[in-house]
């Protein structure tokens, strides 16, 4: 994101709304974006309504209020002068928007958001079958953001387990070679709101994956969220629960349920 200094009146509303805390007040009293930290999510641009006031008018009002020892306070969800300006992004910076702005669709997977379907379409795709487990590791969430070098750190740590990185996942598509987990060098320093490493494995290997994550977590300067998924048994029970709990971990009481209403329903060949 960029800020038009001619328009900005330094109200500060965009500072708080930025999920990465990448906007601050510059020495000239106007806001400035730290381009290294900005993940191009465009939350500031979408949420702060452009009030279209002329900057001179706002500055005049502010000087009058200042003379009366009063402060100019814009309501929290506006940009009084429409100073926020989304730039045209070129690769590799465009990846920031693809991973951070939910209105942008990932070119490689055709899916918006984090760019992956996980179990959400498992009823029609059969992505996870009987005995399979899906493990999703979302780096940067909640609220800290992640660089692809963090993503690489976890991906390479998983390699001894011979992971099957999901092909239709935008992180996998940024790997030089999924057999090594190495990320393409030109994107390694890009920062995103979050990125998901997605692995398909078997239920009995869940404890091994969790052990690797347990060991690597202290080496990261960001947070990550972990999720585990599986296809339910015919009675509706959840097969991954036993494996996770036996490994000594606690699963959330809430989660995501695919109701199985998609058609045509994927038929597993026995």
């Amino acid at each position: 994101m960029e800020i038009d200094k001619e328009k900005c009146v330094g109200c500060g509303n965009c500072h708080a709304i930025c999920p990465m805390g990448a906007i601050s007040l510059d020495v000239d009293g106007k806001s400035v974006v730290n381009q290294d930290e900005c993940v191009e999510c465009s939350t500031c641009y979408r949420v702060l309504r452009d009030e279209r006031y002329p900057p001179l008018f706002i500055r005049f009002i502010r000087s009058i209020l200042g003379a009366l020892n009063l402060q100019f306070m814009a309501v929290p969800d506006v940009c009084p002068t429409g100073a926020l300006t989304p730039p045209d992004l070129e690769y590799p910076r465009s990846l920031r928007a693809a991973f951070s702005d939910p209105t942008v669709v990932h070119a490689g997977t055709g899916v918006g958001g984090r760019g992956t379907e996980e179990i959400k379409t498992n009823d029609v795709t059969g992505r996870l079958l009987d005995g399979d487990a899906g493990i999703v590791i979302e780096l940067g969430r909640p609220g800290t953001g992640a660089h692809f070098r963090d993503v690489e750190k976890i991906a390479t740590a998983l390699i001894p387990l011979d992971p099957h990185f999901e092909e239709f996942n935008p992180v996998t598509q940024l790997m030089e070679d999924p057999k090594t987990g190495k990320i393409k060098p030109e994107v390694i320093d890009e920062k995103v709101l979050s990125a998901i490493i997605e692995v398909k494995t078997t239920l009995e290997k869940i404890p091994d994956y969790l052990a690797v994550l347990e060991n690597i977590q202290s080496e990261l300067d960001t947070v990550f969220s972990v999720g585990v998924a599986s296809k339910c048994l015919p009675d509706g029970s959840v097969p991954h629960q036993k494996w996770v709990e036996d490994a000594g971990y606690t699963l959330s009481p809430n989660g995501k349920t695919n109701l199985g209403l998609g058609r045509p329903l994927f038929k597993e060949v026995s």
Partner: protein
Amino acid sequence: MTNTLHRKGSTEDLKGDYVIFTSIAKDYKPGTAPKIHEFLKICNKYGPINIGSSKLGSVLQNDVEFNDLITHLKDGSTSGAVFTDVETLQKVIADLIEADLGISINVSGLLEGVHECCGKNGITRHSVEQSLGFWGAKDRLPERDVLEINTLCGHGLVSFNFIHKMMDEVRMRKCTPKEAAKILGKCCECAVFNTSRAEKLLEKVLEQ
């Protein structure tokens, strides 16, 4: 909407937090707009506290009306709605089964509640995903109430700083918890933000 998976809260709080949404597989998108349209109409009939579509925004946002949403829907749009009780969710699921839309539909919420809904409607859940929580540099995370509000947005677009700011606005009586919750909900592009839960968390500020 991947991370409706990681919504934080006590089991009691989560009893008031169910998100139902469509997800269309990549190769099955053509021709699905009318089905998603019908999905949203069924949800809307039962008075969700939030409803919308990932490309068009939510009804909490400026200038987004429900009728505009369904008019501009495109094939494959991920769309969703938020309900605050399992009884209503059960009715929504019953209507969706009867409508037989043939698109993948998911619910984020307490698994037992959703499992019971499925049983009462004569279906068996297909797949389940659960969270193992947050790992890594957890010292960078804020206090629990802020985290609970932040995770109400599936993409984490409601910043920690903005939550703190709106807490201050409530504390200074510049706005009510309800108004603050609605403003925070505007950041969530996919309409999964639960304003009711956010309002309850913001009310705590007034008690402190």
